[in-house]
């Protein structure tokens, strides 16, 4: 009994202490809540600017000339030259460690190159990096963020650094929050957000000053498939108004979003063209998969098929099912000829499919170490 009593007493005391703490905590929460609400009200009351108000017609071309970066006697990038034209979405593709991030870090003025230059309108960006940094928005790899800051505070801080006029800051922040889709989460601390939302905060900070050029280093890495689609959609929309340099090692991403692709391997550019042209380049001929039903034997059918002039090569995948893989110089005429042939011979065509050469194959071909 005594034990029980003392136990209760102790518990009461604990409870009492706990209550005091709880009281203070709830007071703190209430004050905080009020503060946030106040902020929210001031946000909603402010006049809404249309996104990217007063758009100028930008014509900023960035020239990358012979950029070389040496890390401890190893060349991370080796004499890279290309031009980033205004208004295009340029995909920077390459295996890990190819030098994509290094190039982007140099263009965004985080690093100095060992040699070479980056120029805008004939002027080196390293002469006045502070002025150039105002024109670009940069999302670094792995998206580093100040985790203990609130989203609004963080964006206000970046906006101030990037010289967004003070009277427009609040409106601009709420606009950008809506734009990147942070609306429901906007009163949280950055550390409390999920990875997809953190990525949106990263995009928001890159966009806050309405830059002409966006440099996005692996913007979708580590996201789940839904988030990847959402972020890609965002980038696609942004691409309508801005020049974007985007790095990735996901091929569908460049196919989905980019106007132009640069493939880089071991610090050198191995390809620079449009997605369509790259496809063409890889398709020295197309592959057709064909399945027939016939009373003749495989050898007989093969003999007859080989007579079509546009067919270069023919391999039998399954001689029971008469399944063929046909390599032809011109897919269109081969398909037509095959169809005519089937009618003439009285065969049944069970399957005819043209398999496209994928960007994956080009990528692997270009970046394979040999």
């Amino acid at each position, binding site marked *: 009994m005594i034990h029980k009593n003392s136990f209760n007493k102790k518990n009461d005391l604990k409870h009492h202490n706990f209550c005091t703490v709880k009281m203070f905590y709830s007071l703190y929460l209430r004050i905080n809540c009020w503060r946030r609400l106040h902020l929210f009200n001031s946000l909603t009351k402010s006049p809404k600017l249309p996104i990217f108000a007063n758009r100028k017609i930008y014509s900023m071309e960035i020239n990358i000339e012979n950029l070389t970066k040496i890390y401890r006697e190893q060349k991370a990038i080796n004499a890279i030259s290309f031009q980033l034209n205004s208004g295009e979405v340029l995909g920077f593709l390459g295996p890990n460690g190819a030098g994509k991030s290094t190039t982007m870090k140099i263009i965004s*003025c985080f*690093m100095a190159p060992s040699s070479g230059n980056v120029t805008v309108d004939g002027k080196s960006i390293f002469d006045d990096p502070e002025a150039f940094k105002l024109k670009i928005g940069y999302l670094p790899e792995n998206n*580093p963020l100040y985790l203990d800051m609130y989203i609004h505070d963080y964006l206000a801080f970046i906006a101030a650094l990037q010289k967004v006029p003070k009277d427009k800051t609040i409106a601009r922040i709420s606009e950008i929050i809506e734009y990147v889709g942070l609306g429901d989460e906007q009163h949280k601390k950055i550390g409390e957000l999920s990875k997809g939302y953190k990525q949106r905060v990263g995009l928001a900070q890159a966009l806050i000053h309405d830059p002409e050029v966006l440099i996005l280093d692996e913007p979708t890495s580590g996201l789940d498939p839904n988030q990847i689609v959402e972020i890609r959609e965002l980038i696609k929309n942004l691409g309508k108004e801005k020049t974007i340099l985007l790095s990735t090692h996901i091929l569908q991403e460049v196919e989905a979003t980019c106007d132009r692709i640069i493939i880089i391997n071991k610090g050198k550019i191995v390809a620079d063209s449009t997605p369509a042209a790259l496809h063409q380049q890889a398709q020295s001929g197309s592959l057709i998969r064909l399945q027939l039903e016939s009373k003749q034997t495989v050898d007989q059918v093969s003999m007859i098929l080989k007579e079509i002039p546009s067919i270069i090569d023919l391999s039998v995948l399954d001689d029971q099912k008469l399944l063929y893989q046909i390599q032809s110089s011109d897919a269109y005429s081969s398909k037509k000829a095959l169809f005519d042939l089937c009618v003439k011979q009285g065969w049944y065509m069970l399957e005819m499919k043209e398999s496209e050469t994928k960007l994956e194959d080009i990528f692997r071909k270009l970046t394979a170490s040999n």
Partner: protein
Amino acid sequence: MNAIWILTKKEIKSYFDSLIAYILLILFLGFSGFFTWLYGNDIFLVGQASLNVFFSWSFWTLFFFIPGITMRTVAEEMHSGTIEILSTKAISNMQIISAKFLAAWMLVLIALLLTLPYYITVSRLGDVDHGAIIGGYLGLLLISGTYISIGIFASSISRNQIVAFLLTLFIALFFQLIFDLIARNMTGGMAAFFNFISLNSHFGSISRGVIDFRDIFYFFSMIFSGLLLANFMLSKKSLID
């Protein structure tokens, strides 16, 4: 200048948003208050209306607490990668370093302002030498500046905060104590040299209320060389990795 102030505000806010500022203030006030008023060689034992006891204790408490403030300044940004965010905004490396210096210095200034009741109390107890007290506070502020710039330099060397903390103590110990000891054991030019580079002698003369150009010059050159070295390390880091 504007960019420096924006970052300074953010840094001060982050001190007060985390526990660092409160812990520092409580510990500093607790230690210096305890030894000034309550224990050992305190004001009542000395029996003079002066704050010398407080100043000589603060000389040591600041020596230990400032590395705690400065260790995270650059190291944490390097570690989390946020330095990449900062340095790709319209702010130069020197501005980043200066802002971090100013923020830490302001935190120390707040701590020192909170000890003003000591001054008021002592001035009610007897006739005080106001010049000496103003000089003492000025001296504390200047040695804090020196420790902070050493601390920021140490923090820019390593990504690891503990390394930065220990390195700050190590470097600061030379200026705090070791150069002074060497000077005492030497004579002639060498003694004068070590005496000049030791913090102790400069703090001593300022806290007596003698504001000499040479002392001010010493502190400011210490502060600037620390910040320049930190800037050099930070710029070099972004060149190498």
